[in-house]
């Protein structure tokens, strides 16, 4: 028994020392990222008047730099493609913890998947892993059940994941090029689209994911508490708007947020040459929509 325990202890010590070699990966992986926005948030570098926060509909369709120029207020876009409302709640929490609260948050809604299950919009935890050197990020992964608090303190290998091993400098892709203002408009059209207009669907609250609804309510409540004006946006889609979804959102916000709907009468939103795909504008369309939005915001900030 003594030999067994001693060998076990010896291996434990060897593994503990070996594990520390992976500190290199933990500490360097953040530097190799091309999208620095989350790290800017953690370092308190996003002190702006207006924050755009959402999924790809926020990232592609709204150009924060243009808003800044048109209404004379500082603006920044922290929208992440393929992110869901839980991730947006995390972004807001992080923003308010490390930065000055903004005056206004623009949050595009992801009709119809804002609250219902989908594989296309997730909590982007792979965006968190390059930043695991920050205890705040590690704690978020622990809170989400991805990591164990004690193990992640003891072992670097538990704290990182396989993506941290890639220490090559990341580069922008044509779809994910980020402007200095954080926006990611796309200047071309996605090939092979069917461009089917008018997709009708039935919206049912029975399909909603409670965690998503709670995250959304938390965003609304936090903005109210911190006196931040929350503007929820329906952004141009190459399809019909569903009043049932809009009514659901109105019920959830209970007058604690404003809902802005894009100008559905504007004929350019029926012209596919202004779109990247059925759900996103291209840069040409984003400029027009941002201008329209800036006009609306001028009188409200």
């Amino acid at each position, binding site marked *: *028994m003594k*030999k*067994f325990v001693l060998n*076990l202890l010896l*291996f434990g010590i060897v*593994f503990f020392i070996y594990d520390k070699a992976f500190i290199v990966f933990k500490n360097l992986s953040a530097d190799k990222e091309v999208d620095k926005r989350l790290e800017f948030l953690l370092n308190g570098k996003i002190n702006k008047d207006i924050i755009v926060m959402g999924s790809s509909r926020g990232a592609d369709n709204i150009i924060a730099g243009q808003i800044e120029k048109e209404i004379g207020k500082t603006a920044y876009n922290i929208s992440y493609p393929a992110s869901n409302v839980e991730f947006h709640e995390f972004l807001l929490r992080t923003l308010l913890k490390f930065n000055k609260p903004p005056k206004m948050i623009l949050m595009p809604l992801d009709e119809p998947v804002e609250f219902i299950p989908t594989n296309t919009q997730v909590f982007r935890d792979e965006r968190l892993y390059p930043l695991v050197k920050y205890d705040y990020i590690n704690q978020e992964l622990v809170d989400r059940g991805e990591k164990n608090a004690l193990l992640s303190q003891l072992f670097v290998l538990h704290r*990182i*994941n396989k993506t941290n091993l890639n220490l090559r400098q990341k580069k922008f892709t044509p779809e994910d090029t980020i402007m200095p203002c954080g926006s990611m408009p796309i200047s071309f059209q996605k090939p092979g689209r069917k461009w089917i207009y008018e997709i009708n669907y039935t919206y049912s609250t029975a399909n909603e994911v409670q965690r998503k609804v709670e995250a959304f309510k938390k965003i609304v409540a936090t903005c109210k508490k911190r006196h931040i004006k929350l503007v929820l946006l329906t952004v141009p889609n190459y399809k019909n708007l569903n009043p049932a979804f809009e009514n659901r959102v109105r019920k959830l916000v209970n007058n604690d947020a404003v809902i802005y709907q894009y100008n559905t009468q504007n004929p350019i939103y029926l012209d596919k040459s202004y779109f990247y795909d059925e759900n996103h504008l291209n840069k040409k369309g984003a400029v027009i929509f941002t201008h329209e939005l800036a006009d609306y915001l001028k009188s409200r900030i």
Partner: protein
Amino acid sequence: MLFNSWPFLIFFTVFFVLYWFGFGKNLRLQNLLLLVGSYFFYAWADWRFLFFLIGVSAFNYFLGIYIEKSHSDKNRKWLLYVGLLQGIGGLAFFKYYNFFVVSVNEVLASANITVGLETLNIIIPVGISFFTFRTISYLLDVDKRKMEATKDWVVFFNYVSFFPSLLSGPIDKAKMFVPQLEKTRNFEYGNASEGMRQILWGLFKKIVIANNCAPITTEIFGNYQNLPASSLLLGAFLYTIQIYADFSGYSDMAIGIAKMLGFSITKNFDFPFFAQNIAEFWRKWHISLTAWLTEYVFTPLSISFRDYGNLGLIFAIIINFTIIGIWHGANWTYVLFGFLHGCYYIPLILNGTMNKKKKIAKGKWLPNLRESISVLTTFLLVMLTFIVFRAQSIAEAWHYFERLFSMSLFSKSPQLRIPVLVLIAFMMIVEWLSRENDHVFERLELKWKKPLRFAFYCLVLTTIFLFSSEEQQFIYFQF
């Protein structure tokens, strides 16, 4: 409580210390601790059925004693039948009642008869298939006088509920396991370190291989109507690997944990993907179940049908494998899975090679061409049946096959993940190199010096940490 979970690590560490240091000198107390530990482990999974488990244990304990005491053969048989009725009846009610009702309704409906038998909202006790087979094996062995009924209730209750193998096997026969509970166990360094190594490899297979295959197979089988045939082939391949890594990983952990407690339990897998035909595959896959059914079902059946020659043997094999199929659960897909494997035996029975044992590439690094073709063919045959096993219904399996055999088989699958294939290749290479051993790291301390061993453990632990995927339930818990 999953073996690869934080609560189990705490539970087992405390248990291990108490087991050897606190109660190691007193067998009765050590067995009592084992029983309490097993019940705690079971209650953690589902406390509602703990009383059912205790009730089943008590019932079979007394029945075993009465069978042994009974002097009349007729009484012994009656008592045995009561025991079998309880075991098989319990299993039939919990696992198959709703399946039976639905099937009867469907058959009658096809003849325009409406009976309207209603299904029940039944929760299946975790591990029922495993502990029921243990109690049946015990009663059959006592009846056949292959062993004496144990008079020590703590020993018997431990046999039924031994926690390492309670939820997912291996299914130990009483005559092999009960004697181990009755004699003093001494801590042996070799056994404990072998156990830890086996746990490590089991963790690797479960966490790194099975859990990384699971999201891909779920995606492919959930959306097979819209995917190219190459994805469907990939899904079938990965599911075959997943179920092996998941179940053999669990078995390795169970055997390893038992070894650390001084027990030797039945081996469940013997590198089945290196089998050269289906008969060999089943001598290497879920060994404890096939050995159980061979002893208590196939052998009596083949003796009964011996007058019919090969036809009798084929009949016995098909019944045996259909039972193996349906043991997995109440679905026609499992029945078909077992039936197909039974059918795979027919050529082997006809050409007399069913029982031939031939070690692959004995003493060589690589198999020859003939062996390679045999191994690949066997794997392919097994893989095709796992499509049926994984499908929700036979119709779904049929559609899957229809889509699988199309021209898009030669396109690139969007679900292809090279790192997962590399990890699978690593597992297969390590297993290939260990194929003549009892398990992957057997007697490693005699072959490799300590620094090399430690380096290898570090490598395996690194992959476990880095490639750990989203937590997945063990597949065989549902059976």
